[in-house]
């Protein structure tokens, strides 16, 4: 009898825990949407999403101008792209080495190190970008007679790539190492070499989980703020040139919220507008990826 009551109590307890988490999430989304709508009452959605200049200010007439977010989107895209161009190939290759080639001892030492690296505050990486990488890149560029802005997209992208590398490597390594030994045996037993086994059996089998790893890393890169503040700057240039300074959505959110404006100022509210767009984008990205993974699984079993 007693165990039945206990069972009920435990079930209720965990249900309440789950409910709490869900309510908080819904609350956040609702307040985000509410504030975003207050913003779009002052600046039209069209001007915001497709405007080419980001120089937000409120004229004495009360009119809000310069809220074109395109430069922020392109800046975010550019930096994230550079970061992923570094992190995806490097992360996957290091993961393959650790999971398939490295002696057990090396794997057991490197894996925890990666996890420690993944936990370093991003401020540290930003500092590394500003003090070490930026001057180095500038020197390299000078030998090719190029000029790099002291704060540049390539600088921020590189450091962000380095920053998510340990995280990405660790996730990819898990995805590969989790595959059953029987797959490897089946392939090797047919006379395949290690590299053939990796390319033709293990990577395809781990593909859904590798995609999930890429996606988690991507979300982390998109949401990153500190590195961009320190390495890419605040200048909202509309440019795809990685040598120029650009800015990102998250950086501008911080920028808009740190100041002494009152809370219903159009500039403050714009932060919620940006946050809302970021939220929708990540949501779409996740849904697309989930859909892709599901489809892949349906085709390949």
């Amino acid at each position, binding site marked *: 009898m007693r165990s039945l009551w206990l069972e009920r109590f435990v079930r209720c307890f965990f249900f309440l825990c789950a409910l709490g988490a869900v309510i908080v999430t819904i609350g956040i989304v609702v307040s985000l949407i509410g504030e975003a709508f207050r913003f779009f009452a002052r600046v039209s959605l069209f001007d915001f999403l497709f405007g080419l200049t980001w120089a937000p200010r409120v004229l004495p007439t009360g009119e809000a101008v310069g809220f074109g977010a395109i430069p922020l989107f392109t800046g975010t895209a550019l930096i994230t792209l550079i970061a992923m161009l570094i992190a995806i190939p490097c992360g996957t290759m290091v993961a393959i080495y650790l999971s398939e080639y490295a002696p057990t001892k090396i794997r057991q030492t490197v894996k925890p190190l990666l996890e420690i690296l993944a936990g370093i505050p991003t401020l540290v990486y930003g500092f590394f970008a500003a003090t070490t990488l930026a001057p180095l890149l500038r020197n390299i560029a000078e030998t090719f007679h190029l000029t790099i802005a002291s704060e540049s997209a390539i600088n921020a992208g590189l450091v962000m790539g380095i920053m998510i590398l340990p995280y990405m490597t660790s996730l990819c390594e898990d995805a590969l190492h989790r595959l059953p030994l029987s*797959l490897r045996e*089946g392939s090797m037993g*047919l006379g*395949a070499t290690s590299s053939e086994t990796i390319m*033709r059996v293990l990577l*395809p*089998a781990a593909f859904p989980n590798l995609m999930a790893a890429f996606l988690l890393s991507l979300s982390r890169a998109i949401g990153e703020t500190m590195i961009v503040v320190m390495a890419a700057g605040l200048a909202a240039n509309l440019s795809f040139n990685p040598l120029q300074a650009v800015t990102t959505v998250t950086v501008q959110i911080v920028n808009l919220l740190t100041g002494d404006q009152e809370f219903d100022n159009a500039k403050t509210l714009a932060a919620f507008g940006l946050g809302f767009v970021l939220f929708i984008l990540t949501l779409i990205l996740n849904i697309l990826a989930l859909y892709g993974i599901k489809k892949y699984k349906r*085709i390949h*079993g």
Partner: protein
Amino acid sequence: MTFKMDVKQLNLFYGDKQALFNVNLGLPALQTTALIGPSGCGKSSFLKCLNRMNDIVLQAHVEGQVLLDGQDIYAPSVDVVSLRTKVGMVFQKPNPFPRSIYENVAYGPRIHRLFKTKSELDQIVEKSLVRAGLWGEVKDRLPQPAMRLSGGQQQRLCIARAIAVNPEVILMDEPCSALDPIATAKVEELIDELREKFTIVIVTHNLQQAARVSQQTAFFHSGYLVEARETGALFTTPHDERTQGYITGRYG
């Protein structure tokens, strides 16, 4: 008698632990040899020595000789890849790759480039599936995921995958242990047919199965090969009392 494979003074170590002791066994060509014995006696370990699957196990170490057509497969000059195409393997648990039925069978021919045109590959796939007795059941669904087949079908797919690279010897480690009696009967029938072209070694815990499918039976006990003789003779008049005890069900 000509032996397709001949094992001489084989010792196997996992690190410091010795798993096989001085095993001598000849495998007659185009016959089926069954390996029986209590759990942990070294049957799977022995089987893996025959196509060097122990190479994947880091601390495994082999001493002695394993001859395939008179050539020692552990000689330094031997190419493990071509050895494993000659000595194929089917595992205890069906382990198809998470790809289509067609791609599973085409895997070996693809990596060894055994075909010139797509239609040649189609033929290899069809022939292997026919031989494995699976063609009728899957010919209309070749592009479907192999994982959607039943356990018994998956195991026959793994057999088809193994014979697609034209091996000379096929090693099977308890190929029926995950299958129901009907699927088991199909695989046993298949083994009997395969004997026309292949030399087969099968590990089994099912003594009736050993009696049904094999011509030679080898009884292993804690790392030693106790007795290996013609199947009928071993089951009716075992020489060693450990063999006697095992086949009469006193232990194991």
